[in-house]
């Protein structure tokens, strides 16, 4: 089954008419310039969550190989990104890796940590491979999360023999954390504690907040929509 066809409003880079700028590339000297704006082909309306397709074999790779945006990030992250892209490219040579500048490097070259070119590279790709943010790349991460509305975070926790674990029985560890990536207490919504006196709900709280004191508050929000889709995602994964 074609997982790409299964993704709602699929925005994979499509092959343009010409072949300029369409070279397969990966890090290690074969950087590609950004591809020309692709023609978006809508693959249909109601589609299941994307990673339900993790269980489905990919059938339509022949039509358009995927484009992956590579953002190495800050500090030591490029040292692991570079060899990772080399290995991934060797395993799947038809994947087009497009590197985009981030963080300090982008600041030097473009004068800002999240240049338009980087945003365009993210948008034109099927997915992004991100290294790590040491601060300067944070706006990019926030765009990947809230801008692209990647609503669920999946973190597998699996011990392999040889992993330097402090546990007595690490072989018992094999699970996946499925986490709300958009709501709760992030992004931070903080304010002066006095602002709470404007909330109508305050009359129902067991203890009134100390609105006359110097202090701050942070809110935690949960929408039904987000909680539902995280729950569905987790069940699909299970």
């Amino acid at each position, binding site marked *: 089954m074609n997982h790409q066809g299964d993704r709602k409003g699929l925005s994979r880079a499509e092959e343009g008419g010409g072949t300029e700028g369409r070279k397969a590339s990966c890090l290690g000297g074969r950087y590609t310039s950004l591809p020309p704006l692709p023609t978006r082909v809508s693959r249909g309306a109601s589609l299941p969550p994307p990673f339900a397709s993790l269980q489905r074999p990919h059938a339509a790779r022949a039509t358009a190989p995927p484009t992956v945006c590579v953002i190495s990030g800050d500090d*030591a992250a490029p040292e692991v990104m570079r060899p990772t892209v080399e290995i991934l490219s060797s395993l799947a040579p038809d994947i087009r890796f497009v590197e985009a500048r981030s963080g300090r490097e982008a600041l030097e070259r473009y004068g800002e940590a999240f240049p338009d070119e980087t945003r365009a590279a993210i948008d034109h790709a099927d997915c992004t491979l991100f290294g*790590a943010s040491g601060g300067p790349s944070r706006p990019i991460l926030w765009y990947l999360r809230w801008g692209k509305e990647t609503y669920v975070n999946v973190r597998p926790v699996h011990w392999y023999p040889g992993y330097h674990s402090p546990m007595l029985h690490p072989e018992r560890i094999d699970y996946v954390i499925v986490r709300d990536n958009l709501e709760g207490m992030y992004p931070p919504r903080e304010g002066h504690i006095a602002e709470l006196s404007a909330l109508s709900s305050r009359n129902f709280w067991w203890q009134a907040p100390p609105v006359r004191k110097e202090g701050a508050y942070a809110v935690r929000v949960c929408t039904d929509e987000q909680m539902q889709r995280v729950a569905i995602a987790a069940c699909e994964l299970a």
Partner: protein
Amino acid sequence: MTFGGKYSILPRTDGRFRTIVAETVRTHASLSYQEYLIDDLARRMVAAPETLDVVVLSNEHGDILADVASGSIGGLGLSPSACYGEHYAYFEPVHGSAPDLAGKGVINPTAMLLSGAMMLDFLGYVEQARRLETAIEQVYREGTVLTSDQGGEASTMEFVEAVSGTLFLKDEEIVV
């Protein structure tokens, strides 16, 4: 399916999330459901991880406990992560940018490689994803070329070479 939250104290937020998760699990006949208060779940991650399979958490709870989980298997250098949306996905290691290690060539690439494997899965290269994971597993099983966070002395590139050697050696064997 395990849900963790502070639903006893926060009925409208964590309590609502718990209800939604429980009801969603109920519509999947093959899944069983358990729930724990978040503090109890944290304890279980350390004391009884074998009871966990898929664990659903809110944003900040998941953020915090994922690092506990990572510590329990051997550290952030090992832990991959993926974020999925309806139209997009991104893949990044759980670890940060490690400024103290920058330029030394010693950072563990396992987390980044495993995040790359999750990406291969997402794009449909399932067999390649499994091969990459198997190669990494093999290098750890042999235990001779590991980075310092895993008790070894190998550099980043030495570890990478060990993985690639294992990966493409297998490839040749398959072809033959």
